[in-house]
């Protein structure tokens, strides 16, 4: 009798289990601390939670610690690995077989040095001749650093971001390191604060930034030209202690990374993530939505899922798509 009950209970549990999560623990996302990654993490989380009936969770942190976390298995999925300047931590983890690259979050990111368009064009343009990054040497007085008035101020990335090293090398390569202070803002938010303040006040400012991002969408900035990307020159520039040549950032593919064990334990989820394919435009739209409506990444994710049905249903089987749609309708 006991055996019969247990067997019956087993069947009852096994039935819905076919439609349940492949993992018996929450799926852990790496919660990167910037907008585009948070948006894509929210989209993937929503689909996995409502379409694949898994619990989801996220672990916050900075890029390098999170990549190491995925390699170790503390996190399963990281939604943005920028292949244009990949972190050594990622390359090592991939080479060691701890992580695997899945789909492409977006294939067309942009990175570079920006100045307000009003500085370059239109009435009152104070630097109409400024076209390339190398030209900056003549315009250091335009971007005066209040703490070191003989030099201009170049807003680099916070220390610890891979772009910080790249930009520092570029400053040397363009001969700007004596004329400009290599200003590390400390945090991404501080960089945004400085750039937005300058944009609101119509003041000149030269800074590194990337797209997709809301700041490039909201205010009018122009990318400073550099020599077209060349892999040999790029690698030499990164190797050299004092590089003399530099080229533009490569057009950026941004991919999804996952822990190898997770990918083998959850093949359906891994397949979904491999088919995941968004782009710069969709991401920037989402970021602008978050900014204008004071919305959280999960709100932008739901907006994307509701309005871009044709896009995301390509990434999942029909039944998963139906479950996600009914969850959206119910919310």
């Amino acid at each position, binding site marked *: 009798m006991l055996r019969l009950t247990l067997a019956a209970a087993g069947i009852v549990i096994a039935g819905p289990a076919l439609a349940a999560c492949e993992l018996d623990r929450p799926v852990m996302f790496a919660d990167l601390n910037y907008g585009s990654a948070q948006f894509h993490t929210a989209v993937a989380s929503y689909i996995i939670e409502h379409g694949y009936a898994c619990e989801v969770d996220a672990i916050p942190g*900075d890029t390098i610690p999170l990549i190491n976390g995925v390699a170790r298995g503390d996190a399963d999925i990281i939604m943005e690995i920028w292949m244009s300047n990949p972190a050594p931590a990622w390359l090592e983890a991939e080479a060691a077989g701890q992580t695997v690259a899945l789909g492409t979050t977006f294939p067309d990111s942009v990175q570079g040095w920006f100045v307000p368009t009003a500085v370059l064009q239109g009435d009152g343009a104070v630097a109409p001749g400024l076209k390339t990054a190398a030209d900056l040497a003549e315009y250091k007085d335009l971007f005066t650093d209040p703490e070191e008035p003989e030099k201009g101020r170049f807003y680099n990335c916070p220390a610890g971001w891979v772009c910080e090293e790249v930009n520092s090398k570029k400053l040397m390569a363009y001969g700007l390191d004596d004329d400009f202070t290599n200003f590390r803002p400390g945090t991404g938010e501080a960089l945004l604060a400085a750039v937005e303040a300058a944009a609101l006040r119509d003041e000149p400012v030269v800074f590194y930034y990337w797209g997709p991002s809301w700041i490039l969408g909201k205010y009018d900035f122009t990318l400073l030209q550099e020599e077209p990307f060349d892999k040999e020159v790029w690698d030499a520039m990164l190797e050299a202690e004092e590089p003399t040549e530099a080229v533009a950032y490569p057009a950026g593919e941004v991919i999804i990374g996952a822990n190898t064990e997770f990918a083998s334990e959850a093949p359906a989820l891994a397949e979904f993530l491999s088919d995941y394919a968004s782009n710069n435009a969709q991401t920037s739209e989402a970021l602008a939505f978050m900014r204008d409506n004071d919305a959280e990444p999960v709100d932008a994710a739901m907006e994307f899922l509701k309005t871009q049905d044709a896009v995301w249903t390509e990434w999942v089987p029909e039944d998963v798509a139906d479950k996600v749609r009914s969850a959206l309708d119910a919310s």
Partner: protein
Amino acid sequence: MDFDIFPDFGKPVRQVTNAFVKKLVVDYAPFFDGISAGILWVLLPLERGLRGAPPILILAIVAVITLAASRNIVLTVGIVFATWLLGAFGLWDQAMQTTAIIMVSVLISIVIGLPLGVLSARSPTVRATLNPLLDLMQTIPSFVYLIPAAMLLGLGKPPAILATVIYATPPLIRLTDLGIREVSRDLVECARAFGASRLKILTSVQFPLALPSIMQGINQTIMMALAMVVIASMIGARGVGETVLVGLQRNDPGRGLVGGLGIVLLAIIFDRISQAFGKRLQAYREVRS
């Protein structure tokens, strides 16, 4: 029933605050640039002096100050050694920058805090109004006002000094208030009986007797200012905090530890010197509060 017992206060507060900050950034730019320039006008020469001076000179100055304040050779040797260690850890330049920021912040804190502490001691109304404000200043997470401050004052040292002053002034105000209020009523009455004016009572009786408390307040202000150096580095102020922050961001715990040790060394140096000065200033050491 779709009724929610919670009205949404959050959204209008957010929108009003954002609009307010934006208005300040755009319309009051010259005013805030002026404040920033004023702070830098005091800070930059000091920083240049500290960074440019040969380290031997700085060590000598530290030795002279410590000896004059404490009259204690052992302490002086210890403090000079601690200062020398900063350089030995490769933190000399950063330590000089942090010292300049601390000195200017503490100076501003004293200029604001002492008068407010005295007022608070004399007027229950002032104390009642000030107390919640001081609580706010000490507990509010710095980043709440730091990003707007960075937008208004520019990135770098000025908002760092603002944040440090906000965090470090309350202990000084509270301890000054406490010290003055704790001066024995009998003494004050005695002085009044001898015909002393209120101002004279304040300067000749209350202030000197409150000195232990006030010096403790200044010491606490210095310590809390040092506690802010890492936060300061998050908005672009250089210094020892930057070493810690870079250690964190580059996943380099060794660098973070070195920076942390630097902060501890600076704390010891500032603490010992200010305590020694405090003892020297207390003429009435036999009179315990």
